[in-house]
């Protein structure tokens, strides 16, 4: 148990509302800025209002949505688009595997998890991995659902409004909005890392990405994850083993 029984009797819908309230937060604001940019890109590429909203809510992971807009722009075939989107969204699989054990409790059903997995994308994943471990286990599913569903609806609304308004932002402003996303991912994941392996994985991921971009541009993210993650995990294990050995040596000499 989590040793936080005092919070366990707060009913689920209260946690759902608490999750919803996180729509007023730095990560949510940054993501909405990113969707303003996405709506502009979709409109310029000849994607209509309804289709842009469907892309935002139906795909939800922004990089995959951008890949699909690129396919519309270059008039790519259905099969080629499917392959390109599959490659860009493969990363959602290990991300979901990592989030599920953090998010669920004994009563969370398979169907609930399948439904909530639709809302896995980088922003919601970072939010879940960083915030949920501080909550009692019984609260986590409802809290994540409240946040992620609200976030997706807000992103669809932002896409709709931006597509209709079609405001062309000044270059510097648009660029600054685009830079928000990598900046935020980097510092928030670093700040939330609980073990050195996770911080190492951030470093190795950034470090090996250029190598795989050059060697294997089609599968660069998959290889970056496998190589960077394995390196970080191995180094983390070594560091932990060395620390344990030092501790036993100190105990023996004391």
């Amino acid at each position, binding site marked *: 148990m989590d040793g936080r029984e005092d919070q366990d009797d707060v009913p689920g819908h209260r946690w759902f509302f608490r999750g919803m309230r996180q729509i007023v937060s730095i990560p949510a604001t940054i993501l909405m800025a990113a969707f303003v940019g996405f709506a502009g890109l979709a409109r310029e590429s000849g994607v209509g209002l309804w289709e842009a909203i469907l892309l935002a809510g139906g795909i939800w992971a922004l990089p*995959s949505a951008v890949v699909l807009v690129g396919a519309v722009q270059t008039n790519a075939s259905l099969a080629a688009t499917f392959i390109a989107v*599959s490659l860009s969204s493969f990363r959602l699989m290990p991300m979901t595997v990592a989030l599920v*054990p953090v998010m669920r409790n004994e009563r969370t059903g398979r169907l609930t998890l399948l439904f909530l997995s639709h809302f896995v994308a980088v922003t919601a994943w970072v939010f879940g991995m960083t915030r949920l471990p501080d909550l009692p286990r019984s609260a986590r599913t409802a809290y994540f659902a409240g946040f992620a569903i609200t976030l997706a609806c807000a992103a669809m609304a932002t896409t709709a409004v931006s597509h209709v308004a079609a405001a062309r932002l000044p270059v510097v402003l648009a660029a600054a909005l685009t830079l928000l996303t990598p900046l935020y991912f980097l510092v928030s994941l670093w700040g939330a890392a609980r073990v050195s392996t996770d911080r190492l994985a951030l470093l190795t991921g950034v470090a090996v990405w250029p190598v795989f*971009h050059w060697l294997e541009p089609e599968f660069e993210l998959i290889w970056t994850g496998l190589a960077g993650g394995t390196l970080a995990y191995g180094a983390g294990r070594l560091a932990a083993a060395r620390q344990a050995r030092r501790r036993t040596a100190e105990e023996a000499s004391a």
Partner: protein
Amino acid sequence: MSLPDNPLTWTYHSLDTWWWPTVFILLAGFVPNDLWRALGVVFAGRLREDSEIFAYVKAVATAIVAGVVAQLVFFPSGSLALSPLWLRLLAVASGFAAFKLARNRVLVGVLAGEAVLILLWVLVVGVPDRPV
């Protein structure tokens, strides 16, 4: 408009009907994305948060997100692509340094990185006035 026989070769613009772009997005966008997510739920199975496999999968997923960060900085889309690469790298590095100096405060890191990008670009490098 004449159609090629194999629907797999149809593009977003192949059919001049209201529903085809929607079907195209569902088949080529929604299906692969949610298939990977569903597989993630299946593979997570009864995996426990304190297991070694979980620690490994989390490291892989974190490295993938780090790769996304690198991609967004090296090959950004839209207006950010008009800025020089060294400026983007400097902005992210400054943001990270400020974040560490401010004892891991996320907002400080984000604002510092943004300030470096905007100020150096406007005052030193010069911003091109036409977006691509």
